[in-house]
């Protein structure tokens, strides 16, 4: 998929094209920022592709991308070669169907659900229905962030459904109201506001809102970052400076993320 970036653009001055790849959570922000940036800077083209944080890291290192989008903290090994700049903060929240009466689950309850110690919603005061556990597929940073919070290894999780995208989790919850899943707060809030019958539920009593992510009280959070290696083109540098500025905060808020600059 990454190959399209180069064929799609006929320009000769390659310095004027900035390619970003990586986390699908960050991509929609960058696309919006890029639209405005391209208008203000004629001749500059921003190409954005998704593929996950790991992809963003690999592409930035190999030079396929000028900048990478990473939605988790870099490991020590990765941080040796790359620098990450926070542009926003996001939370990972548990989503249930609107008709599910449960509004709050603790960390221990999440562990019991995801290891199938509890398999019926009635154990938590819900209806007598089997819990359908939706988990993310390998490589998604929401998976890593969520597992890090509950302290489980992927092999401990007993899932009924494995999905790739945030939206697939949400659609799974919509299509089967007994499903539990976790997604980016930004994605969930956008969908819930658009009328999708899901709800963002509280974790350990803390509501899943951007305010609580901003104040640092929400327990499952992650940074949304832009990463660069040692060789960044001047055009990419300029765009990175723009991303690091407060000028993009209105776009970040529009996507239900929390500005940090």
């Amino acid at each position, binding site marked *: 998929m990454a190959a399209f970036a180069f064929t799609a653009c006929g320009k000769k001055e390659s310095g004027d094209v900035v390619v970003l790849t990586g986390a699908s959570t960050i991509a929609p922000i960058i696309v919006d920022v890029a639209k405005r940036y391209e208008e203000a800077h004629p001749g500059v083209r921003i190409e954005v592709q998704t593929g996950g944080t790991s992809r963003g890291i690999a592409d930035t290192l190999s030079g396929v991308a000028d900048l990478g989008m990473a939605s988790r903290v870099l490991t020590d090994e990765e941080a040796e070669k790359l620098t990450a700049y926070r542009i926003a903060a996001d939370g990972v929240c548990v989503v249930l169907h609107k008709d599910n009466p449960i509004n709050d689950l603790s960390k221990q309850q999440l562990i019991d659900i995801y290891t199938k110690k509890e398999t019926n919603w009635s154990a938590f005061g819900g209806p007598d229905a089997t819990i359908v556990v939706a988990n993310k597929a390998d490589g998604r940073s929401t998976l890593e962030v969520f597992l890090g919070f509950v302290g489980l290894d*992927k092999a401990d999780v007993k899932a009924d459904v494995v999905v790739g995208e945030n939206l697939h989790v949400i*659609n799974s919850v919509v299509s089967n109201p007994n499903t539990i899943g976790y997604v980016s707060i930004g994605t969930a809030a956008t969908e819930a506001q658009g009328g999708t019958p899901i709800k963002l539920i509280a974790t350990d009593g803390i509501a899943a809102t951007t305010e609580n992510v901003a104040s640092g009280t929400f327990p499952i959070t992650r940074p949304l970052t832009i990463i660069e290696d040692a060789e960044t083109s001047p055009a990419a540098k300029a765009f990175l400076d723009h991303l690091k500025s407060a000028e993009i905060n209105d776009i970040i808020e529009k996507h239900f993320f929390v500005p940090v600059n």
Partner: protein
Amino acid sequence: MLGLLALVAGGMVLLIVWYLFSNALPVIEAGRLAAFFTDSLWQPRSQRDPQFGVVSMLVASFLVTLLAVALALPVGLAGAVFHRFYAPPVLERWNRRMLELLIGVPSVVFGFWGLMVIVPLIVRLAPHTSGQSLLAASIVLGLMILPIIALTSQAALQAVPPAQLQAAAGLGMGRARTIWSVALPAAKGGIGAGVLLALARAIGETMAVVLVCGNIPQIPKSLFDGIRPVTSTIALEMGYATASHKALLFCAALILVLFTALLVGWLSFRKVESDPGTGGA
């Protein structure tokens, strides 16, 4: 010149297989190919205990394909017979247009429709399951290959020489008897070719399946269990895979292609052997 063009199609297949092979080479060279068939789990990224068992996925791929064909064949064939022998020409023309349209529907649309319509129906049938299951994937796939089977069967029935049908009528056979004893046996080759095409199409389908199959790498014990065909694994993991993981996925793809080739080869060989006289399409 004509021969050259004909060779392009076959050559492409070899190129693709070669591409798969060269990308899977690191795995083959490392002597890990056997692990694909001896490991019981698929957890290529696990630090503790990496496993590359591909058997459950191969089983899932073939099971879902078989079920899809089992669902689509009776419907498609009955439809084709109806159109050839019973329906007024106007209806026949319109229905063919619809079937052709069905072929053009993007597979991701089929998948989304399956997730939003078929899966909730299955949950109503089996309330303690996720609904994303072998059954859901089979129904969605069956619908996708239905037009292929219906259209090729129609063409095969159309190609039966009218003289044969008239001869049957001359012998005093009724319409049902003519269809059963004359038309269908004569069109067998063409119908078989359509089924083969549908089979290969179903095994390779990815986008529609990944949305409705549940993606659980296990050998299903019932129709309501989640499955993970080889193609789903590739779709879920390829974009996120690093070098060695990628080689594993290419290797899984190569294994699927080889198994499909074996199956298709075996089926067409059997067909030729069993009825040498009626090649058809």
